[in-house]
């Protein structure tokens, strides 16, 4: 049992934990720039008009998904320090996380399929979802500058 305690002792793995403050701030800047870029895209889409807004929105969502995964990578790799751990440890985290690929694909596909089936066979639902409602003014525009 003494060996086990020796391993758990803090200095046993000190040599792999060299904290590089420059790297931390660089990671912070990367995360900040990605987020600002995402906002610029979202606001740009909101301000501009397109001939095919649905297609542009779909492309934009793809870009957002990729940028989000990039941010997740930087947080896990640098802030959570996983990139600097031993390979076996990285694999016990990364391999189970691959389940998300199936998880996401299967469920979104299912949702989309349900929508299509319902629109095809439930005409009432389709008609109901096409009725426009009176556009209500948002409450805060009635009370400009009011604090809630």
């Amino acid at each position, binding site marked *: 049992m003494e060996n086990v305690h020796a391993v758990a002792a803090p200095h046993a793995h000190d040599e*792999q934990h060299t904290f590089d403050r420059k790297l931390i*701030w660089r990671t912070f800047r990367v995360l900040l720039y990605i*987020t600002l870029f*995402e906002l610029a895209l979202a*606001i740009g889409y909101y301000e501009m008009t397109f001939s095919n807004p649905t297609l542009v929105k779909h492309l934009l969502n793809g870009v957002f998904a990729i940028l989000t995964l990039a941010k997740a990578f930087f947080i896990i790799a640098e802030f959570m320090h996983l990139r600097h751990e031993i*390979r076996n*440890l990285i694999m016990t985290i990364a391999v189970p996380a691959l389940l998300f690929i199936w998880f996401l694909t299967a469920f979104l596909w299912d949702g989309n399929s349900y929508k299509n089936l319902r629109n095809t066979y439930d005409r009432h639902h389709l008609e109901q979802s096409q009725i426009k409602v009176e556009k209500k003014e948002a409450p*805060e525009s009635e009370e400009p*500058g009011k604090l809630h």
Partner: protein
Amino acid sequence: MAQAVPVNQNMWSGGKSPFKVEYGKLMMWYFLMSDAFTFGAFLISYGTIRFSSNSWPDPNHVFRTFPIIGEMHIPLAFVSLMTFILIMSSVTMVLAVGAGHEMDRKSVLKWLGWTIVGGLAFLSCQAWEWTHLYHEGAWWGHNPFPNIDGSQSSTNFTNFFFTITGFHGFHVFSGVVINIIMFIMTWRGVFDQRGHYLMIEKAGLYWHFVDLVWVFVFTCFYLF
């Protein structure tokens, strides 16, 4: 980079840790894996419902207000501030972990203190946003926002929004509580007596995970 294992050294023959991390830290990683799947299940069920709907409310319309200034007509400004606060508090947490490695008690206290401030600031922002949406008539079971194509929306949007941001906010809250406990333990010199600051690392992993989840919540609710 990943640590290379010497070729003729058997990592699994006992007597040493094959992962070169302390037991508690490894278990924190596995807990976070399970928590990631919990959040994943929430967000993917949101995605499934959204994919099965013909239309959905427009986030640029819903999230466009900023406290004090009122309606700014700059969509997403307030949530950007919340995101910035959370990323910033993640940086201060890394710096606290780094200071812990150098057994620098004062720096640990300083950076942990800033992390707690960041967490409380985020929670305050979220409390404001929830209150604001509540006053606009949004709550579980109530959705005042029409779909982006002008059709009548269901309550799915608000139900998912409050459930998922609420669950995330609960994680932030428990993270702040954990950080406060770490702060008190550091202040009392518990880790100096113990000879290491590994507890700060475990609290740090949890805190970064909260930041990580927010990255996905931000994309799913405010950008998509």
